[in-house]
């Protein structure tokens, strides 16, 4: 008999692992057929089952294809003894990355029943493989992600949310600090403001330049600082300086009824709404 060697179970196992190492992204059924054709189907199937139950290899689904992959030694410990369903749910949660996955979507994706999913999640949580997170946009949904991942900014609300609460005090502190700095400097750029804020250690979380920009913008919109172009052709940054003109509390136009009139656009002499018949002016002139 040529071509067919009787291999021991261990040899078959090792051979399969060797093949999988050559396809670190995952090995499909067809790939297996090609590389392991010399091994009889039954031995192959037995070996795969052995390796799966020892968590030496894992099975996962990508775009409807079933793929096999070797499990690293440290992962093997984490996954030892997990059932296929538990592994499948773990994979699906893994795919959701740092956005996390809602339990309702887990049901849809895995077709597992509710009590089953609850049990599996409990197991995975105890093993510190997954954790529950709150999404700021939908705080009442039960969402889970991998234990080691940091939830994305969209989920946590970013720098402005502490423990899922909007941290208004913190923002106020930052605003004042930025304003004082701009006042002291007279003229500065976003980069310098950012360096200042970071050097003072106001923040436990890392503040990106865009976060600091949104703080400075609130000062801009409040009329406390002005934004001006940089000097010269080289300087492409925006500069900030304390406001030269503050936004007045009232102006001549807002002091008279016309400034705040809801039907100003329809007002004309001789019309239904006109200055002569204006009820707001009547009230205004009662003094």
């Amino acid at each position: 008999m040529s071509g067919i060697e009787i291999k021991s179970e261990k040899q078959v196992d090792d051979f399969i692992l060797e093949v999988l190492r050559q396809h670190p992204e995952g090995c499909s059924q067809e790939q297996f057929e090609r590389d392991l054709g010399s091994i009889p189907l039954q031995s192959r199937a037995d070996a795969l089952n052995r390796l799966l139950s020892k968590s030496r290899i894992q099975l996962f689904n990508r775009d409807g294809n079933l793929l096999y992959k070797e499990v690293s030694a440290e992962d093997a410990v984490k996954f030892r003894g997990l059932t296929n369903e538990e592994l499948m749910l773990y994979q699906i949660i893994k795919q959701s990355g740092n956005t996390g996955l809602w339990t309702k979507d887990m049901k849809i994706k895995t077709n597992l029943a509710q009590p089953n999913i609850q049990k599996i999640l409990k197991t995975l949580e105890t093993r510190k493989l997954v954790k529950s997170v709150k999404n700021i946009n939908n705080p009442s949904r039960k969402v889970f992600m991998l234990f080691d991942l940091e939830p994305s900014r969209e989920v946590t609300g970013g720098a402005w949310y502490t423990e899922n609460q909007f941290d208004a005090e913190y923002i106020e502190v930052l605003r004042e600090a930025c304003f004082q700095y701009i006042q002291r400097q007279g003229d500065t750029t976003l980069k310098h403001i950012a360096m200042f804020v970071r050097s003072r250690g106001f923040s436990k979380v890392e503040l990106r330049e865009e976060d600091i920009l949104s703080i400075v913008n609130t000062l801009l919109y409040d009329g406390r600082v002005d934004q001006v172009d940089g000097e010269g052709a080289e300087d492409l940054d925006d500069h900030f300086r304390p406001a030269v003109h503050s936004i007045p509390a009232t102006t001549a136009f807002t002091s008279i009824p016309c400034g705040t009139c809801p039907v100003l656009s329809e007002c004309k002499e001789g019309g239904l709404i006109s200055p002569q018949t204006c009820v707001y002016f009547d009230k205004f002139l009662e003094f």
Partner: protein
Amino acid sequence: MKYLDLAPISRINTFLENVDVGDYIVHGDLEAYSCKLAGLDKKLSKSLDAEVQTGSSPLQLSKSPVGPLVESSSRKTLIYLILTLNHIYPDYDFSLLRAHHFCKEDGVSRAEETVDSHLLEVSKVWAKTPGLGESPFLECLWSSIDEAVVLRECDVYSYRSNMENDPFGETACVWSFNYFFYNKKLKRILYLSCRAKSRASAEEEESETVSKQYYTDDSDAENEKYGMANEMEV
């Protein structure tokens, strides 16, 4: 909260899961629980109790839909309502809710009126269903509820949905109602709720595989909430 498996209740609950009345499809829940706290429920109830005590305003402490929150029995009521919702809708976590998210009904009769008027069409389907239709639906419903929690001894509460982050705000929900019948003496809560989904959207949902991360109500043309029939006071 321990789920009570009562045959007449389960029968109706199964029927209400999916009732096609023609223009829309009704999804209902009828479940009874005993107010026994164990395991996770117990832990949650302890933390909620503390949070409600410290987090409530002086006004709420003296008066709220579930009673003065300074009293432990009122806080217990709130906790039972929250835990019941958690059990009925396991994909959601209602532990952020507080007393002002609920309202107390003035007695059973208002709830009865609402339920009876909304479930007229459902009764007709029941009557035509073989094996079920021997006695009128509403009769069966109320007698089974009475058997479980003795209606005249109950306080009736309702959850005021914000229509955004919970099962009542799902797209194309034409009307919905929910009631908790709480019998303090018997330590039992019965939950009755129905949502009507427009037919067209139900068919659309079948082709969708995963729900969107964030709801955008504008995208769904079927999302009409009829003002009158909408019992959820926001």
